[in-house]
């Protein structure tokens, strides 16, 4: 059983659903500790005052917001907390939207919600009702000293929570300029490309594709631990294709 990151309550109308928040995604990127090569000792990061060139205790460190060049407004930690929003551990669900209407580009981080100590029936009810309606609950909550917009939806038998990006954080497609081709692809070309898509069709099985880079790093570590010398793979860069139709046809023949 994993440890919960946060305990709180989902509030819908006058219904309270006690929940526990869990990590759903954890990076498996190989992490290293910094060490001093000379003696293998731990590296510590210490804070220094840039002016006085001396180490300062953390209690003397404040957060400053730059309002002009070199001009800062200093905020105490509890003043930042004051802006964070309602400190209560409550996710206020305000509306329900069709889950499929939300472009996943809005999802920032994903968490799982488990039922809290009391009110397991309310959890089950919310889960089942969301599943039946195909909707996600939208609401705000304060977590780690900032307020988030969250979407709550059924996910793999439990409730999942996504923290969301706000509209002005999502880059609209129009901002990415596209150079138009002199003429649109012909019907024949689209058909041919459709066949190419078809020839490489498969269903999504997440476990099929592994993190090769992670494996390479771990293998290197293992070789090193065993006192062997690492070696590296090589690949050739492809060339640009001049004739679209010919390339599509050649790909199709190769793909079959």
């Amino acid at each position, binding site marked *: 059983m994993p440890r919960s990151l946060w305990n709180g309550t989902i509030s819908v109308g006058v219904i309270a659903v006690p929940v526990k928040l869990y990590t759903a995604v954890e990076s498996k990127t190989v992490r*290293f500790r910094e060490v001093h090569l000379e003696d293998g000792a731990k590296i510590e990061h210490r804070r220094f005052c840039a002016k006085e060139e001396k180490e300062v205790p953390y209690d003397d460190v404040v957060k400053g917001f730059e309002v002009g060049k070199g001009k*800062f407004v200093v905020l105490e930690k509890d003043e930042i907390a004051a802006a964070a929003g309602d400190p209560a551990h409550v996710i206020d669900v305000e509306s329900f939207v069709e889950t499929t209407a939300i472009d996943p580009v809005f999802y920032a981080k994903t968490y799982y919600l488990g039922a809290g100590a009391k009110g397991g029936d309310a959890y089950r009810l919310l889960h089942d009702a969301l599943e039946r309606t195909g909707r996600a609950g939208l609401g705000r909550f304060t977590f780690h000293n900032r307020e988030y917009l969250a979407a709550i939806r059924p996910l793999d038998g439990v409730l999942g929570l996504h923290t969301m990006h706000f509209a002005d954080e999502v880059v609209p497609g129009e901002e990415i300029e596209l150079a138009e081709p002199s003429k649109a692809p012909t019907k024949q070309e689209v058909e041919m490309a459709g066949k190419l898509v078809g020839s490489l069709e498969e269903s999504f099985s997440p476990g099929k594709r592994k993190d090769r880079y992670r494996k390479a790093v771990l293998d290197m570590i293992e070789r090193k631990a065993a006192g062997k010398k690492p070696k590296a793979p090589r690949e050739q860069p492809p060339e640009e294709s001049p004739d679209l139709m010919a390339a599509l046809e050649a790909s199709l023949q190769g793909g079959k």
Partner: protein
Amino acid sequence: MPRPLWAGSLSFGLVNVPVALFSAVRDQGLHFHELHEPDGARIEQKRFCAEEDTEVSLEEIGHAYDLDDGKSVIVLDEELAEVAPRRTRTIDIEAFVPLDEIDPLFFDHPYFLAPTGEADGPRRAYQLLLKAMEESGRVALGRFVMRTKEYLVTIGPRDDRLALTTMRFADEVRETKGIDTGGKKPAKAQLDQAVALIDALSADWDPSEWKDEFRGRLEDVIERKRKGRTIEAPEARDEPEPVPDLMAALEESLAKAKRGGKKQGRGGRAKARA
């Protein structure tokens, strides 16, 4: 137009399209600097050897990886560089999968791809791939190398462009096994009532209705502090308690929702509490 983060070519079959990569999200958060309170000077981080108590330069620092047996292996930058994937500068499409089979949980960071260069062929190939995927309801699965890391990505249509999204690997997604899924299956009458409540509180997804109030309040706090005013933290509300009678709570909530007790897409507590 944002700055491209990467440039290379998108390769499917024998077709290669030179493309540039742009982030599809941008950070709008306010950023703070650490300052030394007595003199307001900036704080710098320095690396110290914990044993010798002396400052060390980056060249003197290695990366240690702790093995299961309690020993650790020290890895040098050169050794990491040796296993880093070759900068092939291509995004290789390996397969096309139905978009609706991928749970958004697997998506990590979203980007856009745009064709580069003056040649007409690649621009057409870009449109061709876009069209073919729009028609098939499938997205491409591929891999590419950015900086020193190899990413698994999906490429699919969004806003009339090709969007690239980096993906989580299957073993980075935790199992839901062991998570408490609550009580027993709800009775039909209860479930019907809950569905009716959800329907009553239904709205269209309109992202522009939800503003980042935290950012707004923080700007407000900075402004007031600048003018020398004091800022007080809000008091925490009591957490709502689970009710003993779910059915009665459902009915009360439904009646409230029908009276329009909640405005749709209001976007939450609008007043700054700070």
